[in-house]
């Protein structure tokens, strides 16, 4: 039975309290703890998920009173929740939060926040709601066939609530029994890679946070401490595999792998902190170093990610060796330079047969990433849909998403044509109709990934023998991609690359330059093949709401290409700090009034976090910043913080049109070019207005981002461009405008298996 005198699932509450409450404590954990306290105290109704933990640590009566009020509010809505389509149709979303409120109730009980009668009444309410809704929900999921984020959330919530109230309520016993029976089976049935196949959104939002808590629950249930590495069932997958995959999905810059319907998004932190603390592995520390701390996202539909991050923060420093890449035979791999400034991913995870809405069709898709910025486009169409990928035979109407009318949508954006893959005979709606093997042999070596995905294509192209792609990272800078396609009959074969805008002039091949100034040039070296480029509107929704398709097409029974890609660095940033700042409590200041107040303001902020989190400042939605600087000669940009909301930017009082960054500023900091009317070496004034979130929930369930990253003046950096690339006499030669690079290179042997 759980000891209700100690907060459950926290190893060392005395040590944790001492660390967090120590005067002068520094470091990122202290920053996050301060954010939790500030939020819980100033707006407990807006940041309810922090209140119980803050009360547990501080034990101050006012903090306890706030937490009690929040829990009372939660309990008060349960009767009405029973009638929502959410609970009735998406009960797993309610399971995890309910389990967490049950746990936080126990934490509060451990510090004497409730009397015996209150405790009994609340216990009855929590456990009976779990019994009739979440236990029912768990039993809806076929056992053992169903292994996904929903069932994991349901099994964990039942195990957690069942263990918590075991001995206090007979209703807890079936919860405990079924939860503890199914939880190891679900964990162990995850693929050996640890990747559930549901994309980053569910790996980060549910699987990772559930795995950490599941390990802690199972360790306690079975009196062990090695659950992270142990296989929950014979031949099963140890939970550490799923945690590693969560960390591997984190890209430098803070975004996640965009391989599902949600595309690029920011990641969670608590599984990374847990992995770093428990394993000391570099991959967790590398991912933790890229986190966006002003991002608030539900983990398992609960906004307590930062709470668990603080609890599990690693005591040890990051290991000296870096995280250079990864390889999973069933999934794909990544190649990163030592400084993680340049990288490429080659993905061959299975897609869902029939209707690929979540696990997209991406056999051997490549994704380029450099200088903290994504260069490939992936994800889903925007809310208006994307006509380019709305194929006639990919419409779907379902009745179980709503209690009212059926929901109709097009899943063409999950098909092959919307991904950087090989296409046959122009079929962009590429997808499987039957469950079948989707790949052949995969292999890797330092700086090399290789996979044959011909099995995927055989359903639609029965005579295909080989669709192999090999990716290399040479000199930590050049990406080389070789495609070898072999079939019995001739086919029109397309190598498609889906890139971020904008197309830019190039000496050869195709070149894009993102709004952040990072460039990618792609050249074909065997045939000097010409790219056919097409702008696509409405896909993906983020970051740009559009994409560039760069296709190379050939016809034959054997088609081979050798692509060379070179990413150019972003701009050189000179940080701007200590900007004058003012709060705008009503959010109604006009430009002139704001500028007058700013000039007289003694308050200085860096824009690294929303002001009320950066300093001891009031909770105000609208803030203005001001600084003056001198324009350098030539082209220059002002880099604004990430996460601006309702922004307004003034240069010497003139407004700047921010429409070009309307969608991208949700994921990437905007670089605003300095206009020509500011003369070289002239001083000018920068004024920026932004709203900041005042609640967990402002992102509408998709995460809430507060401004971060600060301001900078950016200058152009030299970009090396490829002039020519060719393969001759076993040497791949790339001539750039700066140097000639030569590497011994052997083409993939024809008719040889990939694993050879």
């Amino acid at each position, binding site marked *: 039975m759980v000891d209700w005198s100690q907060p459950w699932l926290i190893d060392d509450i005395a040590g944790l309290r001492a660390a967090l409450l120590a005067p002068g404590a520094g470091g990122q954990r202290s920053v996050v703890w301060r954010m939790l306290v500030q939020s819980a105290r100033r707006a407990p*109704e807006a940041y*309810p*998920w922090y209140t119980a933990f803050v009360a547990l640590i501080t034990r101050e009566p006012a903090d306890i009173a706030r937490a009690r009020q*929040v829990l009372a*509010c*939660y309990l*008060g*809505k349960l*009767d*009405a*929740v*029973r*009638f*929502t*389509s*959410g*609970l*009735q*149709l*998406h009960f797993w*979303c*309610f399971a*995890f*939060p309910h389990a967490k409120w049950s746990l936080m109730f126990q934490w509060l009980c451990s510090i004497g926040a409730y009397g015996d009668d209150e405790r009994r009444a609340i216990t*009855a*309410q929590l456990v*009976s709601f779990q*019994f*009739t809704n979440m236990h*029912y*929900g768990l*039993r*809806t*999921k*076929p056992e053992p*066939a*169903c292994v996904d984020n929903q069932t994991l959330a349901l099994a964990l919530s039942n195990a957690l609530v069942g263990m918590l109230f075991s001995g206090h*309520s*007979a*209703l807890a*016993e*079936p919860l405990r029994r079924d939860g503890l029976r199914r939880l190891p089976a679900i964990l162990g049935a995850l693929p050996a890679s640890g990747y559930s196949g549901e994309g980053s959104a569910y790996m980060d939002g549910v699987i990772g946070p559930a795995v950490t808590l599941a390990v802690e629950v199972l360790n306690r249930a079975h009196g062990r401490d090695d659950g992270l590495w142990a296989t929950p069932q014979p031949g099963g997958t140890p939970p550490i595999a799923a945690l590693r995959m969560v960390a591997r999905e984190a890209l430098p810059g803070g975004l996640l792998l965009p391989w599902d319907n949600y595309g690029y998004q920011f990641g969670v932190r608590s599984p990374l902190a847990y992995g770093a603390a428990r394993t000391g592995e570099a991959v967790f520390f590398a991912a933790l170093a890229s986190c966006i701390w002003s991002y608030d996202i*539900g983990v398992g*539909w*609960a*906004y307590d990610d930062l709470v668990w991050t603080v609890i599990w923060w690693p005591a040890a420093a990051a290991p000296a060796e870096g995280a250079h890449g990864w390889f999973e035979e069933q999934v794909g791999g990544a190649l990163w330079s030592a400084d993680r400034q340049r990288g490429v991913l080659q993905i061959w995870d299975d897609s869902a047969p029939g209707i690929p809405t979540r696990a997209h069709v991406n056999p051997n898709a490549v994704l380029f990433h450099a200088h903290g910025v994504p260069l490939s486009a992936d994800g889903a169409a925007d809310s208006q849909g994307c006509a380019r990928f709305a194929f006639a035979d990919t419409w779907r109407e*379902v009745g*179980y998403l709503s*209690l009212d009318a059926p929901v109709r949508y097009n899943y063409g954006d999950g098909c092959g044509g919307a991904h950087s893959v090989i296409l046959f005979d122009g079929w962009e709606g590429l997808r499987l109709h039957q469950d079948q093997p989707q790949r052949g042999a995969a292999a890797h070596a330092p700086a090399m990934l290789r996979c044959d995905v011909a099995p995927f294509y055989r359903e639609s192209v029965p005579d295909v023998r080989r669709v192999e792609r090999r990716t290399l990272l040479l000199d930590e800078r050049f990406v080389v991609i070789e495609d070898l396609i072999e079939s019995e009959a001739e086919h029109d074969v397309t190598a498609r690359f889906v890139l971020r805008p904008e197309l830019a002039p190039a000496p050869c091949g195709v070149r894009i330059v993102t709004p952040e100034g990072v460039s990618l040039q792609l050249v074909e070296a065997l045939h000097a093949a010409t790219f056919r480029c097409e702008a696509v509107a409405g896909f993906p929704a983020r970051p740009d709401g559009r994409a560039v398709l760069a296709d190379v097409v050939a016809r034959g029974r054997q088609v081979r290409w050798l692509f060379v890609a070179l990413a150019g660095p972003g701009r050189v940033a000179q940080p701007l700090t200590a900007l004058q700042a003012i709060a705008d409590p009503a959010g109604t200041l006009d430009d002139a009034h704001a500028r007058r107040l700013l000039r007289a303001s003694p308050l200085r902020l860096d824009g690294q976090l929303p002001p009320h989190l950066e300093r001891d400042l009031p909770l105000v939605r609208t803030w203005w910043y001001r600084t003056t600087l001198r324009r350098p000669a030539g082209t220059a940009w002002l880099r604004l913080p990430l996460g601006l909301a309702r922004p307004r930017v003034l240069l010497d009082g003139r407004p700047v049109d921010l429409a070009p960054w309307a969608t991208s500023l949700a994921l990437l900091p905007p670089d605003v070019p300095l206009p020509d009317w500011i003369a070289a070496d002239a001083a000018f004034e920068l004024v920026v207005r932004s709203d900041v979130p005042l609640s*967990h*929930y402002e992102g*509408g*369930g998709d995460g809430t981002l507060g401004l971060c990253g600060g301001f900078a003046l950016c200058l152009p950096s030299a970009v090396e461009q490829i002039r020519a690339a060719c393969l001759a006499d076993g040497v791949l030669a790339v001539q750039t405008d700066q140097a000639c690079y030569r590497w011994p290179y052997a083409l993939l042997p024809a008719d040889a298996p990939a694993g050879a």
Partner: protein
Amino acid sequence: MHDIAMMERVLCDPASIPHAAQHPDWEVRYAAAVAIEACADPAWLPTVRAMWQHELARPDYTRASVRFVEHVGDTRNAEMIGPLTAVFPAGTDDATRAAWACRGRVRQALAFAIAAIGQCDDGLRCMLHDRLLAADEDYPVKAAVARALARVGTAASIAPLQVALALDEWCTHTEAALALAALAARSSE
């Protein structure tokens, strides 16, 4: 507040199942069905049949029509810790409200009880088939019925299971496929 004490009691004391099975509170009846499943005793089949008939006689839950004050959407309601008020159409009686909250929960638990007992007469089996064929039945009920038919189905169950197999809902489809495989295995024994 629901009769949680009675729910607790029926899980601990099978002797209270007959009383709980007829309780006006659907949550108690749900607990009674779970208790019958735990007993897995064919002696409870008449009780299961009576409970099933009672569930079928309740108001239709498939056309629930509730508005909410401070409603924020399906999954966001899980995350939001704020007030929520359900507003029912005028004239909605308590029985209808209870049916809308319960939906297919008791039916699902009864199907699992039949599966655990592993026996079933033709009348009860027909009731199971009807649920698979009912166009507007909730999928948790259909999936549970399919699972029960894996244990108690006969050749007559194949046609309704094939209807369920064709549904575009993963749990139902999966349970139907497993049930058909189980029936095929039994017929080849």
